[in-house]
């Protein structure tokens, strides 16, 4: 049995659905408060920093939380290869700690800057598509996912644009395959413009890993798409077809949704046999 900690920092708000998505693939999940003794965290095999507004996004999203002893402990645990996923606000926290991408350890090399979108500044909540690439993170976070698939997922953020001021960091992120997930259109082609590209991120990045590939900063919300019932009913494409075919079938709607892959991949990496019908 593998165990994952979902870290509850004041202001996060996705801890319960994140825990449910882990439980659905057979990973035992516990919501751990930020001020529990940091040593508690060492007992876990994986960590999720969930979405929300940790410490009210004071200074910058994720900046205050990145200094917490609990987050420092998780960063240290990651050095031994334990998987860590930061979703949305959790991604902002990981980037603020510097462990993603971690090209020069100890340095903060990335930022999640305010969205760049025509006529539409600030926060937005919408469904988009992402596609996985080959890279060091694939084995941990996308092993159950075909690289051809355009995966519909919801996102909800105001500051989700991966950016760096250092051209060398950008080049190495690209050359080392650290952009594990990119925004694409419904057909899986690179997102050329808004709204397929929701925020103007460098390299159309939706998710970037560390060099070792065991820490992922991911802006979309796979936990909000982990069951088929969460899929918008009129969405185009294969996932939309599955959702429409499931009208009237509770069992089908309680099956995996497009975001399940991340949790299923994590379970596989942790050696957890997923419950029947839970994986994809």
């Amino acid at each position, binding site marked *: 049995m593998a165990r994952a900690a979902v870290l*509850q920092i*004041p*202001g996060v*708000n*996705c801890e*319960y*659905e994140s825990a*449910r*998505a882990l439980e659905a693939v057979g990973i035992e999940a516990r919501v751990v*408060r930020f*001020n529990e003794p940091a040593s508690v965290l060492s007992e876990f095999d994986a960590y999720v920093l969930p*979405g*929300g*507004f940790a*410490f*009210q996004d004071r200074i910058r999203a994720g900046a205050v939380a990145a200094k917490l002893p609990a987050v420092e402990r998780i960063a240290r645990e990651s050095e031994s290869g334990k998987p860590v996923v930061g979703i949305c606000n959790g991604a902002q926290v990981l980037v603020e700690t510097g462990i993603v991408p971690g090209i020069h350890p100890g340095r903060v090399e990335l930022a999640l800057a305010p969205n760049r979108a025509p*006529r*539409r*500044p*600030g*926060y*937005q*909540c*919408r*469904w988009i598509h992402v596609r996985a690439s080959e890279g060091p993170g694939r084995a941990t976070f996308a092993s159950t996912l075909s690289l051809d698939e355009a995966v519909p997922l*919801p996102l*909800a953020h105001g500051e989700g644009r991966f950016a760096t001021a250092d051209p060398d960091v950008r080049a190495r992120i690209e050359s080392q395959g650290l952009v594990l997930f990119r925004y694409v259109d419904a057909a899986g082609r690179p997102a050329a413009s808004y709204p397929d590209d929701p925020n103007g991120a460098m390299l159309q990045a939706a998710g970037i890993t560390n060099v070792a590939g065991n820490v992922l900063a991911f802006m979309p*919300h796979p*936990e*909000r798409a*982990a*069951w088929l*019932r*969460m899929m*918008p*009913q*009129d*969405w*185009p494409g294969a996932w*939309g077809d599955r959702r*429409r075919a*499931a*009208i*009237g*079938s*509770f069992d*089908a*709607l*309680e099956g995996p949704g497009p975001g399940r892959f991340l949790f299923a991949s994590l379970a596989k990496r942790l050696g957890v046999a997923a419950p029947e019908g839970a994986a994809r």
Partner: protein
Amino acid sequence: MPPTAEAPVLPFAESDPAALKKLLAAEGLRLAPGEVAKMLELLGRNPTRVEATLFDTMWSEHCSYKSSRRVLKAYLPTESPDVILGPGEDAGVVRFGVHEGVEYALVIGHESHNHPSQVVPVEGAATGIGGIVRDINCMGAEVIGVLDALRFGDPEGPRAATVREIVRGVVDGIWQYGDPLGVPNLGGDVFFSGRYDENCLVNVVALGLVRTDQVVRSRVPEAAKNEPYVLVLVGKPTDESGFGGASFASAILDEEAEDQRGHVQVPDPFLKRVLFEANRAALAWLHGQGAPFGFKDLGAGGIACVSSELAAAGGFGMDVDLDLVPTPEGEYPSEVLACSETQERFAFVVPERLAPRLLQIYNEEYALPLVYHRARAAVVGRVRTDGRYRILRGGQTVCDAPVEVVTAGIQHERPRRARPAAPPESPLPPVRDHDALFRKLIASPNLASREPIVRYYDTEVQGRAVLRAGEGDAGVLAPIPGSKLGCAITVDGNPWYVAADPYWGTAHVVAESLRNLVAVGARPIALTDCLNFGNPEDPEVFDEFETSVKGLGDAARALGPKGEAGPPIAIVSGNVSFYNESSTGRAIEPSPIIAALGVLDDYSVAITSGLKRAGNVVVLTGAREARLGASQLRHALTGETGGRLPTLDFESERRRTYAVLDAVRQGLLLACHDIAEGGLAITAFEMALGGFASQGLGLQLPISALGDTAAEVRLYSEAPGFLLEVRKEALPRLMSLFAERGVDATITGRVLDEPRFKVLDGGSTLIDIDLAEASRLHSDGIRPYVE
């Protein structure tokens, strides 16, 4: 507590009318002279400043329902087999269903935050959300969704700049509060009309989920007779923010509104989210202890109201010690500490022996003092068994009265006078170019896409969404993980309808809200109302109010599944907001806003309004009546908003509504959309467009079979009805179901495999538009007012 001295009093009894007026003004009190006399009679002496402030708040229209109570009681049905708790507490509670042997209930509340949103839109709207979610949480429930019904002035009218600023501010306030709180937005509606130019409406609805055996009442429990109980105040430190807010909400906005900003509370969704988590832990622990307890949120009237109401509801008294109330640095007068409306606070009454552990949960585990300067939980009072209510400060008794005197309330009889009949409708000019008219209408403020607003709202958080705002006619949630149980909710109102005919206009709003529920497959179980009107002292306004409430009550009785013969759809919670007018005496349109809540035994049957598959047929039910009063068409062609409303026949409406519900439940339909503002044309167009996403389908709509009235009547009559997408194979079953129920049905369209919207009348094509282009027009309609 130490023995106390008498506090100084305000010399009301000795004041002549002129001096009284002066004294009230100097003290910032809005009590009427007659109300001062009643207060003196109840107390038997002059009040202290704290007491006068307390009565001023408790007797405000906002808190006392002094004009409306009689009317609400006379007309509104509040009980049905679905109801657990009707109006009276912070929110209504209705039965939901059983999952794995546990019985669950839904909690629903409905509030307005109109004046604050007009004066400071961001904070006003944010604290509107902040207040309604507290009402739900304090019933012991987890908040699982909010909705917002917004009414703004004319964004193209004489005050367009201010109106647009308010639109942007209100939308910002709602998302900036709701999103960090982690509560999804489940829907809402927006209506623009010039009569809201100087008084916008921000109505908010919140929904909660609770185990039926864990509903917490807002009162001191009976057990306080047997052991000592204390009052625990939780949350933000008490400051002067929002002092006088309830009275402000109950007055007419005037030119000095700028000076009234101090009455608006300061929102903090970050602290609220932490408090909700701490409340979850605290409630779970208290339920485990087995001792009864009370819980209530702090809203209007602050500590004084919450403590006296908790005490009075249980038949007890209370001593509250203001010296124990956590505050920021600085000195605060007693009346401010007692009555300010500082946000993000709750109060418990618990056995004294449980208080230390309760404080530990808030102050240590959830670290309130760390996340917000000086926020904490503290014991601030003690329950008395003798019914005496006292507030103490610095060795003085600043309030001392039997609790029933404090919470006695007040009522006013308001005179009524029917408004003079409106002049007859002017004839509509003929429509020469249907295509151009259609393009104009789909971009008009009241029919354009709400997408520019909705994309700011988090519709996904909590992972319970089945249908989102805009996907279907109502938002649908699967709130209990692993359970088939679903719930659906919608909020509706049409001010032009109610202005044209307060009785039938309101009944139409109820009917529409029920149509929205059945369209997604939900059985209606409860309603809430927020009744926004002008000055109740104006006999014509009050007549509109009473007539509207009568229409609401009659519709709620007649539109239950069995009509008058069975239980009604009960009204379980609500709010009355009067004095919605500007200093120039221009009242808003009478604006009852109705939320409707429904249940799905199996959420998987829920369908959206978007078309599903090319080749399917589209069926209309509900004849297109040639009555275009108050319609969007009439306004577009003449600028007028009055006239004769479409007929609402309760019996045929009821039959149609429940026939559609059964058709959805039996899986006969693939898409369903009710007909309301904009009529058949707009309904059909929205189905073709898909509310939330589109598969690239289109719709061909021949209208020659719909009677021999003018095409614009058939296209834009807002007579009630539905448009249904049906698979050809399911058509015979649908037709026989409708025939059995005596419900009309006409095949009126076909789903196309290309993104076009075409309307044909006999041999001529009235409308033919590419849906990508139409979508741009539709979604850019209100964008300039929002972005």
